[in-house]
């Protein structure tokens, strides 16, 4: 391929299709942080910081300002794949914009009876 060909390729309009992992620069899986679909995250940096971030990162930072959101909710709000959103969230955790709380690992063994009872009480009250 000549240099000219290369330049022309880059100048082509990529079109409206954004491949699922374009926003993660091609990274998938092997999450730096161990995130579950119900891992909760909340912003620890102000929304104003969003201006300094790429668009998707900024959106996540803004939507997590007031209250913790799950990975699933963020993925649904952004209309991105869960796996892609996990990569973005991991980056924001690493950069100190978000903190997270994952459910305890199953290796913990015993189900938490108090937690089960609380959920049962809550559902009964619906």
């Amino acid at each position, binding site marked *: 391929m000549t240099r000219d060909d290369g330049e022309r390729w880059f100048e082509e309009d990529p079109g409206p299709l954004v491949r699922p992992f374009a926003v993660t620069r091609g990274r998938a*899986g092997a999450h730096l942080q161990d995130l579950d*679909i119900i891992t909760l995250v909340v912003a620890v940096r102000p929304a104003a910081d969003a201006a300094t971030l790429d668009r998707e990162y900024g959106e996540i930072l803004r939507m997590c300002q007031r209250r913790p959101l799950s990975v*699933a909710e963020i993925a649904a709000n952004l209309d991105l794949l869960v796996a892609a959103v996990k990569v973005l969230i991991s980056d924001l955790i690493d950069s100190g914009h978000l903190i997270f*709380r*994952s459910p305890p690992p199953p290796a913990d063994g015993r*189900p938490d009876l108090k937690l*089960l009872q*609380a*959920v*049962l009480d809550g559902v009964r009250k619906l």
Partner: protein
Amino acid sequence: MAFANSDGPATGELAGLRAVKLLIAGGFGVGKTTMVGAVSEIAPLRTEERLSDIGASVDDLTGVEGKTTTTVALDFGRITINPQVVLYLFGTPGQDRFWFMWKELSVGALGAVVLADTRRLEDCFGSVDFFESRGIPFVVGVNCFDGADVYDEDEVRAALDIGDHVPVRLCDVRDRDSAKLVLVSLLEHAMRVALTTGGHAGA
């Protein structure tokens, strides 16, 4: 109990908060999303998981950029149980080819509802097997569609070959109270299982 927590000035906001999940499994069109919507405090949201991703540890996608991406939709809702506990309900596709997804979803799940349509009971055989083999507490909710043959709970139990300890509940998942009773039944069952097994996950 150990948690994976990160440090930060707002750690306190998350420190006392727990997210838990229940699964609603069943065949196509059996009413999973309807049930989520009946009890959720938010309109059901939809996320998509990529079929080839789940459970795989792929560092990058170099060389697969041109592959067609196949995704599977996952509808879910949320119930704020109390200021410390948030419950998420995930409607999970019941077809065999989506089982890979259940592995991740079912980790840490408090339990599952297997939704059944008596016109297509065989659609939930796979779900029943999955939850039985993994020791995840489950109940069978028989969604009584208009015009469907009405079987009683014992007939459904026999047809599905499940033990007497597994609750079977006739329900109408469009109805909030009916859907709620199925969830109550599941959580009561999960409590019994936890008490009788000594509480080991997978027991």
